[in-house]
């Protein structure tokens, strides 16, 4: 199973380790802890050593993490490959167990408690899934076929379902980012493209009417088809396809008018889309033009998304999720309810100005104005006390961190290490992007932590181990691990 092509390098414990990454990591941890301290700082009771204080507990976790990181760095990297399936199954079992004996926090039954220590099994699931995905894709002669894609998606789907059952939508979304890593390894770009269409279509549907989105899809598809047919010098077909689209829709409208029924625009668009599709399909088959089928795929994806979004929004999403989305798009104002989080968060960040109020001088992020001010909304403290300058510093630091990891991943000789590297970059980036965007009102409120910043022992430990596992693999970058 393990093919060791390169000679065993006499790397000492130190010199294989990427100290630049560790330095960036250390910066993030220190800055994160300072903000956690600030968020809990109470000018009245200036007690530092208080076992109850979040910053003190977090410090304990940091120490524990350092110890475990040391252990990881000394472990055998090949073991990770071996243990990946076992770890994956173990984490699934724990996830399932959480559903039974877990503790409910903020509506999500996502916590396991051992005495006073709480643990979120999804952290483990993230690492193990990343490892297993990496292992599957690093198999000899792995190629993206329909079968292997299904296999990989199943690997993702199982933890996603379990986490969704825990009612922890935010964490479930994280598993989607593995698709980005797969893209690096040769997954067709159309999946990402379709994903992009899905997101844009869904947002557009929420902000506008469904039929407008469908009409836009139809128009774009027709335009693409026309341009392509023009390019093929098939102007006859071009005009016919336009006629085929417009005439049936017009006739349907006329029929509805005669029957004195209300004219439904979405119905007209669907009729037009069906006619165009059938016609284009005939052309595609008769003339063997493969490109047209892609046009049709995107067209129907758009239409389906528009319907699905409406349906999911009205029937599947829970009330609080609906309001969060409505608040984001400004459809609804709810300053005391769902809008409260966002408004207080923006007040805190906005009051920071260019250079912030100074360390420990913030007023909004203390006194509980910002809900979850030390977990999901820790970025507010950065915004308030360090201002625009501090925020820029933080974002740039994260970006450097990501690029460094990508750089390292690309340097790996073994596919396993590379895929794993990409997986964790994607996870970090997803957390980073979603968390900060929600605090500054660019995304609906999805409760996921900011890596190394948010209070929470298991998430801090999870993120750190995730990173140190990669650094351990990176130490053996010359080796081919499979």
């Amino acid at each position, binding site marked *: 199973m393990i093919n060791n092509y390169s000679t065993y390098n006499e790397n000492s414990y130190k010199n294989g380790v990427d100290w630049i990454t560790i330095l960036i990591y250390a910066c993030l941890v220190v800055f994160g802890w300072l903000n956690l301290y600030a968020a809990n700082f109470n000018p009245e009771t200036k007690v530092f050593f208080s076992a109850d204080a979040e910053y003190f507990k977090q410090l304990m976790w940091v120490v524990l993490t350092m110890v475990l990181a040391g252990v990881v760095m000394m472990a055998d990297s090949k073991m990770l490959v071996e243990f990946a399936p076992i770890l994956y199954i173990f984490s699934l079992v724990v996830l399932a167990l959480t559903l039974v004996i877990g503790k409910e926090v903020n509506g999500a039954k996502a916590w396991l408690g051992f005495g006073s220590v709480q643990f979120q099994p999804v952290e483990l699931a993230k690492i193990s899934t990343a490892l297993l995905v990496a292992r599957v894709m690093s198999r000899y002669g792995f190629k993206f076929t329909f079968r292997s894609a299904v296999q990989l998606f199943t690997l993702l789907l199982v933890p996603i379902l379990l986490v969704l059952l825990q009612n922890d939508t935010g964490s479930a979304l994280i598993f989607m980012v593995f698709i980005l890593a797969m893209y690096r390894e040769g997954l067709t770009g159309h999946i990402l493209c379709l994903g992009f269409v899905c997101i844009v279509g869904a947002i557009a549907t929420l902000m506008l009417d469904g039929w407008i989105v469908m009409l836009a899809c139809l128009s774009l598809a027709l335009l693409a088809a026309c341009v392509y047919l023009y390019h093929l010098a098939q102007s006859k077909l071009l005009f016919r396809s336009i006629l085929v689209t417009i005439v049936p829709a017009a006739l349907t409208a006329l029929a509805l008018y005669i029957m004195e029924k209300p004219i439904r625009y979405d119905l007209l668009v669907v009729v037009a889309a069906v006619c165009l599709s059938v016609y284009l399909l005939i052309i595609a088959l008769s003339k063997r033009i493969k490109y047209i089928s892609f046009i049709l795929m995107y067209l129907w994806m758009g239409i389906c998304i528009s319907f699905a979004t409406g349906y999911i929004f009205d029937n599947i999403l829970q009330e609080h999720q609906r309001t969060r989305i409505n608040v984001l798009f400004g459809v609804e104002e709810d300053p005391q309810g769902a809008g409260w989080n966002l408004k207080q968060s923006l007040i805190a960040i*906005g009051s920071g100005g260019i250079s912030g109020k100074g360390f420990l001088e913030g007023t*909004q992020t203390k006194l509980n*104005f910002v809900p979850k001010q030390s977990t999901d909304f820790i970025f507010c403290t950065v*915004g308030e006390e360090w201002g*625009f300058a501090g*925020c820029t510093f933080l974002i740039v630091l994260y970006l450097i961190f990501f690029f460094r990891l990508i750089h390292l991943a690309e340097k790996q000789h073994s596919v396993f290490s590379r895929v794993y590297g990409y997986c964790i970059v994607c996870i970090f980036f997803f957390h980073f992007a979603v968390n900060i965007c929600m605090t500054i009102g660019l995304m609906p409120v999805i409760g996921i932590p900011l890596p190394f910043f948010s209070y929470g022992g298991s998430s801090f430990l999870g993120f750190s181990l995730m990173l140190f596992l990669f650094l351990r693999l990176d130490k053996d970058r010359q080796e081919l691990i499979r």
Partner: protein
Amino acid sequence: MALVGLCMLGRLAYVQLIDNTYQLSADSNSRRKVVQYPSRGLIYDRNGKLLVSNQPVYDIMIIPREVHEFDSLDFCNTVGIDMPTLRQLFQRLRQNINRHLASVYKPSVFVRQVSVERYSMLQEKLYKMPGFYAQRRTLRKYEYPAAAHVLGYVGEVDDNAIKNNPYYASGDYIGVSGIESSFEVQLRGHKGVNYQMVDVLGRQKGSFRDGAYDTLAVSGQNLTLSLDIDLQMYGEKLMAGKTGSIVAIRPETGEILCMVSAPSYDPSLLIGRDRSLNFPILSTDPHEPLYNRAIQGWYPPGSTFKTINALIGLQEGVVTPETKYPCSYGYTLGHFHMGCHGHMSPLNLRQSIQHSCNAYYAYEFRTILDNKKYANVNEALDVWKDYLVRFGLGYRLGVDIANENRGFVPSAPYHDGVWGKGWPSLGVVSLAIGQGELLLTPLQMANVAATIANKGWFYTPHAVHRIQDSTIDSLYTTKRYTGIDTAYFSVVQDGMELAVWGADAGTARGAQIPGIRICGKTGTAQNPHGRDHSIFMSFAPKESPEIAISVYVENAGFGATWAAPIASLMVEKYLKGEIAPNRKYMEDRILQTVLNDQ
């Protein structure tokens, strides 16, 4: 990734650098102003007697969330309410919480204005009643049951005041009338502010920046009034059972010595919780005790006004002190007849005041209006009106007591409106004897007396003599001249002295005070509200006037019957400190008479 980072930075730049609305709301979010209420300034009378002070009361506050079971019966008994009231209070609190007018975390007033005695009992039991505590407020305390109209009262601010003046917040007290209102700025002092940090539920988390921005409350300035509270009380005693007004002014300073408006009320009725109870009773009383007749009442001046017409005629040169006019029970011209009482005829100017001859002033007034100096009657009337304005009539005098009325002096255009253009002097001849459209407040009348006493000038009447750490408005220390020669005033003063002391007969002999050269002029004003008003205008002593006074008794009859003796008693009280025993009969007659019993 870099793109996402740029999006974030763009958004952050907007939120943190460009849009400053967030910055503003952050401050009000976490900082709470706790207002320190200053104590209101004290008010003294001219002799240093304390008139108005403050008394502490306690608002029982409640923090609903912290309330546990408590002995509600004991609470009721201690605070002085009954169980249904308590239940009602809780019900209202619940309603307010539902309507977001109150918070379960923040204190709100539960029982208002509990007295010190009850509070001291409650204090010992508060430890058994978690969620309740007491907050000190101050209410006014009136040391004398008098001078209600001058002092005014204090009430909670209304929405209008809050909107128009940023100083006030809901629940603050503000002077509503009288001195309390016109000297509100001086009396209220400055509120102090404590900034406290509060958390999201409004709970206190300590002081803001160790109190660096806190300010102390500054007590209001004390006022010393020119009022003589003994004279004021005596005046109110004399006016009991009557409707009307007494205003006395010290001529050489313009200080108001007393300002009685009858019927009056005890200012203590309008303190704190009692106000909501008593105000409706007072405001619906048919005698209108809340109405300050001294500065708000409009009355025709009647014959007292003849003094002014005499002065104007002399100054205009249309009459001399020796000018004589005949009178045979009145003034008759064609079909026009203005009646007069029987007296010797013809009369010169001094005698015309002594006998209050209507005919004399009909002739005299018409010569003023038909003066060839002026193009027509209109122009002459406007000249006449200008004299009155210089006497302080027709406009607000500018007294430092709130809600003064201006009275009414008809102008030429006004008569144009009533009569049409081209009216003759005969048409307005009733102005000669202070009837017609002419209306004066008792204060204006007293000021006329002071002006005559000063022989041609006056200081704007005022009730506040001294303001602690400040000076009174220069308006009250600037002489105002009438534009009439001092010599002419001597003539009118002679006439007024004769009216009281005249050997052959005078209209105001009832005003005589042994040993005091009191001068006066009666008035009996016809009015559309019933019997004539009894009026007297006076000053004393003639050689160096110390008091000028006007007395109005509504619907009481002749000026000589009621107003003159009242003025006489007031002057005697002020100048001698007490009423001579041989004049007690006069005092008793006044005290025992009820004139406004409808």
